[in-house]
C-alpha cells in the first residue's frame, strides 16, 4: 500500500523543493492483488477494446455504452468511489494505475476516464448523501455514463467567465446556456454542470439528460478521438430540482477546480496508456522491418529513439505514481484533521498536491506527444498511412495537451502557486539535491524579485519545477531495479539537464555550463524495449 514520503521533509505540497525525501512510492510497490487488478484492466483492453477500434471510430450505435456496461460489471467504473455508493473504495493511486491500462486506446480512455473520474468526483467529494445515493451507484455499475460540463463557446481557459445561468423559479432551478466540448455527451445520462446563480455565483448542478429543456447537439467533427463522443449540451429553461445543487450556492468553482486537480492527475495516467501502446507497436515494427539487410531497430539512431522514449516513459510513470500515493496520504491526513467535516477533509486531499498534479499533467502529456511522434517516425512512410495503427494514436494524442487545462495555463498555475508558497514561507528551498534542483531554486529566487515577470519567464520557471520533480521521482525509483532503472534515469538526466539549462538561461540571461553527460548504453536500453515490446518496467 501507499507509504508516506520521508520523515525529515514534511509531506506537503511543493515540499520536493526542500530536497528529496528518503523514499517515494513507485509502481513496483503495488501489492500483488493490486497488480492483479491492473492485469485485468490490461486484459480487458486487449480483448474488448483494441479489436474494436474501427467500429468505435465509426461511432457504431450502442457499441461503446455496451463496453462501458461490461467494464462496470467488472468494477472498472467506480474504483475509487466509496463502497457505500457502489464503488470499490480503492485509493486514487491504484485507480489511476488501473485507468492507465484501460487507456491503451485514447477514445475509450476518455469515455471511461470521464465516467469513472471527473463526472463522479464532484459528487464524491461534495455531494449530499442523498445525491450520492441516487447518482453514484448507476455510474459505478456502468449502467449510466457521466459527463462534466464546465467549458462554453466563449469560456475555455477563462472558465470562471462562464455565462450559463441558474435562476430559481417555481420551486426549481432553471438553467440557460450552452456547454461546449462535452465528452460523453452523446451517451451520458447525467451531467455535472457549472452555472451562475443569478448570473453571478458559480454553482454546480446535477442534471439528468431527461430533464425538460436539456438537449444535445450533433457530434463535433474531430481530428482524433473519433471513437469518443464530444458534443454541446444545450440548456434551454432546463428544469432541475432544488436538491440537485451540488455543495453550496456560489461554491461551484471549488467543486469544479478540485475535480480538475484530481482530473489532471488521472489524465496523466490516461496519457501514458496510449504511449505504452505506441511503443509496443513501434518496437514490433522496428524488429520486423528490414533495410540494408538488417532490422531497422538495430540502427543507432533508432536505438537512440527507443532509449529516449523508455526514459521519458519511466520518468512520467515515476512522477505519476509518486503523486498518487501523496494524494492518498493527503486525503487520509485531511480526514484525520477534520474528523467531523468530510468536505473540509476532502478539500485538503484534493488541493494539497495541486502543483504536483499539474506537473504530472504537463510532463506526461508532453512525454506522450514526443513518444508517439517518434514511434510514427520509426514506421517511416507506413506510419503516415491509416493501414498501420500508429496514425490513429498520433491523431488521438494531440488533445491531451489541450484539455483538463491547456499546458500553458497549467504552467502558469505551477509557477504562480510556487511563488505564492515561497512568498508565504510554506515552502523553503533546500539546495544540494542535484543540478536541476539547484537551478530551480536559484530561478525561484530570481523570479520572486521581479515586479511583473513576462509569461515566458513564468513558463521557464514552471519547466524547471517540472523537471525538478520528475527527475527526483525518477531517481527515487532507481532502487527498485538498479541496473535497468539506473540507465533510464541517466538517459533522462542527459536530456533534462539541457532542458533545465535552457529554461534557466531564459530567466537569468546568463549562460550555464552543463554537467558532463552520464555514460549510457543506448543499444542495451533499446534491447530491453524490444524484449518487453514496450516500456521497461
Amino acid at each position, binding site marked *: 500500500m501507499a507509504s508516506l514520503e520521508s520523515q525529515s521533509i514534511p509531506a506537503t505540497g511543493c515540499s520536493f523543493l526542500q530536497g528529496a525525501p528518503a523514499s517515494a512510492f513507485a509502481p513496483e510497490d503495488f501489492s*500483488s*492483488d493490486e497488480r492483479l487488478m491492473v492485469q485485468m484492466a490490461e486484459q480487458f483492453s486487449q480483448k474488448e477494446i483494441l479489436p474494436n477500434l474501427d467500429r468505435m471510430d465509426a461511432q457504431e450505435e450502442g457499441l461503446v455504452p455496451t463496453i462501458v456496461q461490461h467494464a462496470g460489471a*467488472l468494477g*472498472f467504473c467506480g474504483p475509487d468511489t466509496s463502497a457505500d455508493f457502489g464503488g470499490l473504495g*480503492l485509493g486514487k493511486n491504484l485507480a489511476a494505475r488501473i485507468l492507465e491500462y484501460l487507456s491503451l486506446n485514447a477514445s475509450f480512455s476518455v469515455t471511461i476516464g470521464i465516467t469513472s473520474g471527473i463526472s463522479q468526483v464532484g459528487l464524491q467529494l461534495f455531494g449530499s448523501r442523498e445525491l450520492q445515493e441516487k447518482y453514484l451507484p448507476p455510474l459505478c455499475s456502468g449502467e449510466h455514463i457521466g459527463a462534466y460540463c464546465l467549458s462554453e463557446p466563449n469560456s475555455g481557459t477563462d472558465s470562471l467567465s462562464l455565462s450559463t445561468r441558474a435562476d430559481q423559479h417555481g420551486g426549481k432551478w432553471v438553467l440557460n446556456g450552452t456547454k461546449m466540448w462535452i465528452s460523453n455527451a452523446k451517451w451520458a445520462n447525467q451531467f455535472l454542470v457549472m452555472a451562475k446563480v443569478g448570473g453571478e455565483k458559480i454553482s454546480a448542478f446535477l442534471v439528468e439528460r431527461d430533464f425538460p429543456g436539456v438537449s444535445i447537439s450533433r457530434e463535433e467533427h474531430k481530428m482524433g478521438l473519433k471513437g469518443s463522443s464530444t458534443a454541446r449540451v444545450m440548456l434551454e429553461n432546463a428544469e432541475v430540482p432544488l436538491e440537485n445543487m451540488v455543495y453550496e450556492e456560489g461554491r461551484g468553482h471549488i467543486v469544479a477546480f478540485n475535480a480538475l486537480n484530481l482530473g489532471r492527475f488521472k489524465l496523466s495516467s490516461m496519457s501514458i496508456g496510449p504511449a505504452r501502446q505506441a511503443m509496443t507497436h513501434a518496437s514490433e515494427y522496428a524488429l520486423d522491418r528490414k533495410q540494408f539487410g538488417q532490422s531497422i531497430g538495430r540502427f543507432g539512431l533508432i536505438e537512440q529513439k527507443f532509449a529516449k522514449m523508455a526514459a521519458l516513459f519511466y520518468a512520467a510513470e515515476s512522477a505519476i505514481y509518486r503523486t498518487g500515493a501523496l494524494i492518498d496520504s493527503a486525503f487520509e491526513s485531511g480526514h484525520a484533521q477534520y474528523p467531523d467535516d468530510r468536505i473540509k477533509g476532502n478539500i485538503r486531499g484534493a488541493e494539497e498536491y495541486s502543483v504536483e498534479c499539474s506537473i504530472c499533467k504537463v510532463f506526461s502529456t508532453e512525454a506522450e506527444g514526443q513518444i508517439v511522434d517518434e514511434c510514427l517516425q520509426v514506421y517511416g512512410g507506413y506510419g503516415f498511412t491509416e493501414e498501420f495503427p500508429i496514425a490513429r494514436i498520433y491523431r488521438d494524442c494531440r488533445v491531451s495537451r489541450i484539455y483538463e487545462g491547456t499546458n500553458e495555463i497549467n504552467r502558469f498555475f505551477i509557477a504562480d502557486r510556487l511563488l505564492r508558497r515561497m512568498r508565504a514561507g510554506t515552502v523553503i528551498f533546500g539546495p544540494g539535491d542535484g543540478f536541476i534542483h539547484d537551478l530551480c531554486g536559484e530561478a525561484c529566487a530570481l523570479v520572486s524579485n521581479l515586479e511583473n515577470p513576462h509569461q515566458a519567464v513564468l513558463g521557464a520557471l514552471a519547466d524547471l519545477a517540472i523537471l525538478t520533480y520528475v527527475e527526483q521521482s525518477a531517481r527515487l525509483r532507481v532502487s527498485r531495479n538498479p541496473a535497468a532503472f539506473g540507465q533510464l534515469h541517466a538517459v533522462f538526466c542527459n536530456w533534462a539537464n539541457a532542458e533545465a539549462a535552457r529554461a534557466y538561461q531564459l530567466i537569468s540571461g546568463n549562460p550555464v555550463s552543463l554537467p558532463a553527460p552520464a555514460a549510457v548504453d543506448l543499444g542495451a536500453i533499446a534491447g530491453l524495449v524490444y*524484449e518487453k515490446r514496450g516500456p521497461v518496467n
Partner: protein
Amino acid sequence: MKIMVTVKRVIDPYAKVRPLSDGSGVDTTGVKFDANPFDEIAVEEAVRQKEKNPVIEIVAVSLGGTECEEQLRKALAMGADKAVLIESSENYDTLAVAEEFVALVKAESPDLVLMGKQSTDGDNNQVGQMMAALLGWPQATFASKLELADGTARVTRETDTGEETLEMNLPAIVTTDLRLNEPRYIALPGIIKARSKPLEKRPPSSTATSRVKTVKVEAVPARSAGKKVGSVDELVAELSARGLF
C-alpha cells in the same frame, strides 16, 4: 461435493527467459510470475461447475514458497472457496509433487481433482497421471468437456485420432486441455473479496526426495540464416548433403 484444483506458480509463459550462467536453472531476476495457464482453466472449470451446482466447494492447492500465495489468491478471486499451500522451498520432481498432493487429497477428501495437463515451465505432463496411479483412482487427461452427474464424471478428451468420451466413477482425476474453456475476467470485487477468504499453510507431509536431477539448462541455439534454392532438385541435393534426405 468438493473439487480440488491445483495451481502452480510459473514464470510468465510469455516472458523471455535466460538460463543462469552456470546452467543450473533459469534466471528469474526481474521476471514476472503467473498461475500456470492450464491450471487457470482447471479453476475456471471448477467455478463453472459450482455455478451449476452451488453446493460444490472448491479448494485451490499449491506447493512451493510463500510467494505462491499470489497465485492462490488469484484462484480465490476467480471463485475458489479456500486455499491450501504446502509450504516448502525444496526442489520436487514430478513424483514427489504427486506424493504431496496425494497426502493432501487424503486429508481433504475431494470428489474430483481438476488440474492442468501440464505446467508451462516444466512441460512434464505427469503429475495427474501419477496421482491417479498412487490413489488407484480413474483418470481422464486432456479434457475438452466435463459433465458431472451424481457420482460420475463424463469427460470428452482430445486425442490424435479425434474426440473420445469417457465415463468414470468419482472420485477421479481430470486434467485440462486448452479447449475446455476460456478463463473469465476476474472482477475487481472478486479480488477484494479474495483477501478475506481462508488460505491455510501447512508443512509438506514428508521431506522432499528428488529422484530426477536437472543436469543442465541451456538456451535454444540461435537459428542460422537460411538459404534460398531455385528448384526441387536443388532442395533435394542440399538436404541429402546434410544427411536429411
